[in-house]
């Protein structure tokens, strides 16, 4: 088993929290993990990405090769498209539809949706709205993780246990809210995803 995931977003959106949950769950499942992240200059509102690799064998490269990502998980719709050359032919995009516009020339949402729909059954998530329903806009990353859960190769219960573990320091109610958000995302994804 080997899963390659590209996490995408804008500096400050907190994709590394998503990565931390997956990393923890993968280690708990006895898998090998490599996760390359971006620190420094681009964290200031620039495009950021993390290459996350999970395997039951040794992993050599910290970076994912082009055309081999099983999943692009993006918390911003345009950012999902930036890494398309990495997507495997049967790979999936799971992206938030909440745009973050801090530059000139941002395309229209229609153009972005057109491009997303050229890929294999993209899962499009109104993350902010679902997060608010779960209790706080701040849980939108866990909504996104929930939506991506069917494609990560790790049992949903294990992912939930890792959310519990990583959020417990902030209080039981915060942890519960994030799990609620995770489940909301998961439910939406099951509704949208056509099995391949």
């Amino acid at each position, binding site marked *: 088993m080997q899963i390659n995931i590209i996490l995408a977003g804008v500096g400050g959106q907190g994709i590394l929290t998503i990565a931390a949950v997956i990393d923890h769950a993968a280690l708990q499942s006895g898998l090998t993990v490599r996760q390359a992240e971006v620190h420094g200059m*681009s964290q200031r509102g620039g495009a950021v990405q993390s290459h996350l690799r999970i395997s039951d064998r040794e992993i050599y490269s910290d970076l994912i090769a*082009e055309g081999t990502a099983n999943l692009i998980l993006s918390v911003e719709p345009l950012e999902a498209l930036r890494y*398309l050359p990495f997507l495997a032919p049967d790979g999936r995009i799971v992206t938030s539809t909440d745009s973050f516009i*801090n530059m000139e020339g941002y395309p229209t949402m229609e153009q972005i949706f057109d*491009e997303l729909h050229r890929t294999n059954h993209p899962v499009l998530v109104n993350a902010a709205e679902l997060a608010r329903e779960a209790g706080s806009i701040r849980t939108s990353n866990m909504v996104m993780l929930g939506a991506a859960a069917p494609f990560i190769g790790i049992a949903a219960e294990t992912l939930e246990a890792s959310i519990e573990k990583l959020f417990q320091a902030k209080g039981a109610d915060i942890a519960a809210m994030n799990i609620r958000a995770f489940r909301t995302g998961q439910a939406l994804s099951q509704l949208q995803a056509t099995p391949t």
Partner: protein
Amino acid sequence: MKQLLLGAEAIALGALDAGISGVYAYPGTPSTEITEYIQKNKGDCEQPVHSTWSVNEKTAYEAALGMSYAGRRSLVCMKHVGLNVAADAFINSAITGVNGGLVVAVADDPSMHSSQNEQDSRVYGKFAMVPVIEPASQQELYDAVRYAFDFSESIKLPVLLRLTTRLAHSRAGVESAVSAVSRIQKTLNALYAPERFVLMPHNARRQYNNLLGMQDKLEEDSENSWLNRLLPGTGTIGVLAFGIAFNYVMEVREAFGLDYPVLKVGHYPLPRKKIDALFNSCDTILVAEEGYPVYEELLRGYFGNTHIKGRLDGTLPRAGELNADSVALALGLAKKEVIPVPAIMVNRPPELCKGCGHRDLYEALNTVMSSHEQHHVFSDIGCYTLGALAPYNAIHTCVDMGASITMAKGAADAGLRPAVAVIGDSTFTHSGMTGLLDAINDHSPLTVIIADNDTTAMTGGQNSSANGSRLLDICRGLGVEDAHLRAIIPLKSHLAENIAVLMEEISWEGVSVVIAQRECIETAARKKRNPAAKA
């Protein structure tokens, strides 16, 4: 159980487990997390470990050398360009040698993710004639740091540990070998050896000869190092893979079910016998180096060995990081068809945070400069460098830390009016103060604006060496006249006042300093979330 650690953190844990008495460093991406990990986790140790930030890389290096002189183990960390700043100390410490183990961890940044260049620190290792260690994985980093301390003590030389961004900032499971409570530091044992440490010519010549005499032994050590190993294989093409280039070579080997022989090198000087063996068994050698083609050039020679492929003949790209794709192409595998980036894609460059004081400073400065015919602003490295981008386009140079003041001074000497420099607080104490003294001694007409946000923001908010009133005191002490040493608060509500102050000082024909004082909004927010944590 394995801990998930960044490569940088694996170095830190290895150093703590090796019993260091101190880490000395100045922040710099991608090396910063080494020291930060030690700052957060040194409490587990029974004995104290020094870990506060140094003013710059040179002071850090010299303090580490002093700790080694006193018989204890020390780690010194910096980014690649930091070694330029510490180079004088580094090169000369190879001549004196060390006492307690001294490991110099230098993080290079090929592809320039957060840097001005992609210089390769292995060149410095060769230049200083000390061993260089270049591990390929997080676990290897952990093991190699502990090995490097023992090795440094046995050969009495500093050991350079080179890594690159990709390994520094990538996480993997790391198994540690020592429990925190059983870490043992060396006892104080200051070395009385003026014949080694007083580098007057008569001593220096002898010490240099000793260093030259050691080179054969260092090569022998490389030959036997666990970091250098041959993976046998078949076929006429062999791969010589240095540092993390090994990972990409192995990724391709596994993914395509290939079986070429690979010599992994992670310990320099070159293990000559192992290299000879690889070259003798293959017709063609691909040399894969993460960084400059340092050893490819050497192996190729002046007249060119046509059996060698690599970065110099275009088989691999001449610049930037390697990856599995570039290595696959270099090995003759056909390029995959991939989905292109759609034409609607636009860049998303980094920007100053909303609400950042640097924004208000640039708004005021732009108004003032637009009233001058010449509106060059010399600047420096930090978050405020983002003022070079739209919408401000407010600064026009960024070369090396501290250069804003000295370049503005040179331009003023050449007749440029006004001559204006913008520099951050941490950059000012790093290497701006000395340049200001030059300007004062020469009465150069120059305005220095210090953007004092009370932290080293660009690298993640580390403590700066001097802020607030201490910065004013430093400037006064250097000789800036009180009447031309001004403090402003970069806030929208102070815009008119700030424009007036800058206008006055920029038109004054002498050295003036304007300090813009306002805390970084990121560190302020962090303090609010976690009042106990000191920024």
